[in-house]
């Protein structure tokens, strides 16, 4: 019941966003002029969304921002809502992307996710996943999906 309601609300929101996007013509132009690192991030998020749909998740919302930061993707895995943080690194970085999510970031993600679920009065199961994307020269990006990143922190 609560899951349905939450989905409905987010669908409405997404529609609103997409209407806005399609109406504003200069927004598309704006994205072209984005700095390189933001373009990389955007590309990664798209890849992650593709991947999630591919493995059977339903995307509920993207780039939902609130006071504690932004949630990249909110998806639906069976009866569980998954908040996905996407990290993209282009070739040449020494640090793997999954290492860039520290305790501070996890705390922020938990807060944001909690606010999202509470606003929608959602009482079911939810978790936070990480998708780490490494861009490689000449080949397709490698995608790594780490489920339930808060599990080890009790």
């Amino acid at each position, binding site marked *: 019941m609560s899951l349905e309601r939450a989905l409905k609300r987010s669908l409405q929101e997404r529609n609103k966003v997409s209407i806005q996007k399609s109406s504003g013509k200069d927004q598309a132009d704006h994205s072209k002029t984005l700095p390189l690192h933001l373009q990389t991030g955007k590309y990664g998020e798209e890849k992650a969304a593709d991947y999630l749909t591919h493995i059977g998740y339903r995307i509920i919302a993207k780039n939902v921002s609130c006071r504690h930061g932004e949630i990249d993707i909110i998806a639906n895995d069976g009866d569980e809502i998954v908040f996905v943080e996407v990290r993209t690194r282009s070739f040449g970085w020494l640090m793997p992307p999954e290492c860039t999510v520290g305790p501070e970031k996890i705390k922020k993600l*938990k807060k944001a996710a909690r606010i999202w679920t509470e606003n929608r009065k959602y009482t079911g199961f*939810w978790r936070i996943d990480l998708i780490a994307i490494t861009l490689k020269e000449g080949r397709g990006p490698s995608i790594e999906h780490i489920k339930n990143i808060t599990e080890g922190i*009790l």
Partner: protein
Amino acid sequence: MNSVSGITLRGVKAVPVEVEVEITGGLFNISVVGLPDAAVREARERVRAALRSVGITLRGRVAINLAPADVPKEGALLDLAIAVAIACVQGGVKVRKTSLFIGELALDGRLRKVRGAVPAAFLAREKGWDIYLPEENAEEVSLVEGVSAWRVKSLGDLFAHLRGETELARVGYCEADFTPPQADPDFSDIKGQSAAKRALEIAAAGHHNLLLVGSPGSGKTLLARALKGILPPLSDPELMEVLLLRSTVGNSISSVRERPFRSVHHTASAVALCGGGTTLRPGEISLASRGVLFLDEFPEFTRDVLEALRQPLEDGQITVSRASGSVVYPAKVLMVAACNPCPCGFAGDPVEHCTCSPSALERYRRRLSGPILDRIDLHISIPRLMPEELVSLEGKCGESSAEVAERVRAARDIQVKRWSGYGIGSNSEIPEKLLRRKIVLTPEVKSFLLRALNRVRLSGRGLSRVLKVSRTIADLAASEEIKLEHVAEALSYREGEALSWMKI
């Protein structure tokens, strides 16, 4: 009552712990309430990994309640009960009959050995519950009669059993065998010392405490170790008592009917010897119950340790009281103490000269208080062997342990037959009122005792102990009444030459 229960140990008693689990939506989190100690709190990590290994992934908020809430829970043996309770909520497992689940989980779902399996089996038998326990604990539990126990290798096997897919193996009852272990060292390996051997025989027959006094190298330790070989095997009720204690501390059982022999180093603390600690563990004196507690270098023990032994030696049990509660442990030990007559070890020696100064002697003797010596029935001096005796290497020296053990067993049988109606098993346990009523002395013996008491000063307890030892000597001789020679021998062990150095 929930059908999933674990246990926590309270002394040698198992307290049933009901495990309740609630899972609600939200971000994954496990919380354990009900006074868990660190090992129980860490169980959530093991349980989570073990459950995943059998295909149950936890999610949401998992609240685990261990009831009763005011009893502190300790140890890793609640792992299995927690895992089963969670699986009942989330994994489609159903426990139909109220059961005890004990076992520590490995991350891959295997079960590890725990301490406390025997107390748990006793509880299960008392309540008529089933008990599921690790494979490695099955051996000790198989000695307990009338328990419906199942041996569990891994979590996967257990869940398959509970779902009705496969059947686990039961733990069958097997009676402990009576084969006596090989005596090591054997009595026939010990040269000379026939008086000491006789005293050991009396001590073994009546479960009397023993003090060996002798110069260095005279064979005190060897004799004490040989005592193990002449003790009769544990009877069934004794075996259960010993089994409970061994299981509580997690000692493995080697030879089942063998009486415990605990040798304690003189650096031991009072807690190590008498029991205690925050978890109220039994001490060496309880682990040696129904067997031998060997204290080598007796005067080197700290004074408070020796004085702490007084009350358990008298009562045959020890009450360990701490802030977290109090438990009563059995302490029916045969205490064997060994010491040198003086710091240099040669006081009273016919050849060697004692080089200790009077003040050193005084200090040494003051370590052994009157009250503790009063509780030791047999005082024996172990003289150094003469060179001729030492060199005669070939041949056997007297009887073998098996022959002595046979006499000891016969004497014990007489005692058990006589005292079984009173709930005691050996002469050393005779309570005061029974002693006065049941031990009848002939007028001749009485007048001898009176004359002896005028010469040597014996306390009331001293006299009782002399009478108990006399009873044992009479039993060894298969004599119904206590004769003069029996009392005389008992008196000689108490007021003989062994402690003459004490009174210089």
